[in-house]
């Protein structure tokens, strides 16, 4: 019986992330449009886009290999599993106990690896340049992400997200300068990984600047739908990760009744909306940086993560 309810709640979470991800992206786009005094498309536009792409025929290049056809599903599956691992509205779900931060990083890393391979598969120059830029960004973002993980793990004594969330939600954690640095570093990494504005602008098709968009330029139809959906899910995943590690208030603890699950779900929606709003605000306020500035930006994130980890040794010194 307990197992059944476990499976039910975990299934709810998997469905929830799937349903909310396009809405979040639509919300961010709407907010961005409103902030520059435009009407903007409806918040449900991403769902319509996905449906439209699913109905369309797939156009494949003659020399596309099986890798090119498999990649959209592989990346989508990896990102979906990773998103199901992050506690969104409740900790201690069925999958949460296998959810290691390092496992999430590696799932996202393998998704990106396949995408970069597929970008080079057809052999067009755009795919190659997109893949090489993506890998350059990833090579810098991943160490920064891992340092943030180490920092969190040293504070909470575990890399398991449920434990971390419960620990941070308890009153045991005081004012920690390391956690502050870790959250800024994680936000910077999230901006880079999701191809958001200071690093990349997926809304344009300008060949000088595009990174992610160049890599998936050859995709069409349902393949493109899968990749786009994966990108939406990834944004949701990073926001839930930040919310669960650094703002775990009102998140439901395992085994409490359905009421606390409902409270947790509402709190999660509020957190998502706030994060989406701040993301839109940040994106309208900043300009995209040059590709060659990106290493410095991510170097700063790496530095913050490293500094946070170092400072922990002093704060633990008694």
């Amino acid at each position, binding site marked *: 019986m307990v197992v059944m309810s476990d499976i039910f709640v975990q299934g709810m979470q998997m469905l929830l992330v799937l349903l909310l991800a396009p809405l979040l992206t639509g919300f961010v786009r709407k907010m961005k449009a409103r902030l520059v005094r435009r009407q903007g498309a409806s918040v449900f536009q991403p769902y319509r886009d996905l449906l439209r792409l699913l109905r369309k025929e797939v156009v494949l290049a003659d020399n596309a290999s099986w890798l090119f056809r498999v990649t959209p599903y592989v990346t989508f599956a990896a990102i979906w599993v990773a998103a199901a691992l992050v506690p969104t509205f409740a900790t201690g779900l069925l999958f949460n106990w296998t959810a290691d931060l390092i496992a999430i990083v590696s799932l996202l890393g393998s998704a990106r690896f396949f995408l970069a391979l597929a970008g080079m598969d057809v052999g067009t120059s755009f795919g190659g340049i997109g893949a090489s830029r993506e890998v350059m960004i990833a090579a810098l973002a991943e160490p920064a992400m891992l340092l943030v993980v180490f920092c969190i793990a040293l504070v909470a004594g575990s890399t398991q997200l449920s434990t971390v969330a419960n620990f941070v939600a308890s009153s*045991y*954690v*005081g*004012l*920690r*300068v*390391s956690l*502050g*640095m870790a959250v800024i570093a994680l936000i910077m990494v999230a901006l880079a990984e999701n191809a958001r504005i200071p690093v990349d602008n997926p809304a344009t098709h300008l060949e000088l600047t595009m990174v992610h968009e160049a890599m998936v330029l050859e995709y069409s139809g349902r393949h493109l739908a899968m990749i786009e959906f994966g990108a939406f899910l990834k944004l949701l995943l990073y926001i839930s990760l930040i919310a669960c590690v650094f703002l775990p208030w009102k998140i439901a603890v395992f085994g409490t009744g359905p009421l606390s699950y409902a409270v947790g779900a509402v709190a999660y929606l509020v957190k998502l909306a706030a994060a989406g709003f701040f993301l839109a605000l940040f994106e309208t306020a900043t300009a995209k940086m040059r590709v060659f500035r990106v*290493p*410095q930006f991510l*170097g*700063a994130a790496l*530095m*913050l993560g*490293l*500094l946070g980890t*170092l*400072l922990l*040794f*002093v*704060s633990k*010194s*008694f």
Partner: protein
Amino acid sequence: MHSLAFDVSHTLAGGLVLISFMMLYQDRLYSLLNVFALHALVLALSVAWQAFIQDAPHLYVTAAIALVFKAIVIPVALHRIVMQLGIHRDIESAVGIGLTMLAGMGLVALSMVLMLRVTAEADPLAREDLAFALSVVLLGLLVMVTRRNAVSQVVGFMSLENGLVLAATGAKGMPLVVEISVAFSILIAFIVIGIFLFRIRERFDSVDVSALDDYRGERR
């Protein structure tokens, strides 16, 4: 275990180290001066907090000196010097920013390791303060070493002195006379450096100190 006193002083001192890193990162002269003013402001807050938790009213005087002189007078004076001299406002650094950051990280790690070993029996608050202060001092030195521009070297020197003040306030029972004399010696040093800046500028049409090497007949 986690008292608020420790947490706040930890946050302020850690913030000071972070601002030292921001100083390493800047490549514009004016933004460097602004970051320096922020550094001094955080220092003043940190010293005031130490005065509050140590119950040592004379430290408020130190905080006030830091606030007035370092956060307001010296940055404004440096702004005016830069404007009067009309020097280049982008800083040429001798080493790339990424490498400098890595070196800074190494210095912070070094000072942590050193201080935690040496002061094993000390009060945790003083110990943590000393470790941070040493890293601020070393980072100030790093700013001086990696910059070619004389004005940014002055800023490095001043931030180094901020680290000294942080160390002095972390230790209990530092007499006020010592702090005031340190503050005044820094002010004197600042005036002397200001005069030197004008002389260097007059002589070489630039405040890039590598011009001095050429003058001495050394090759870069």
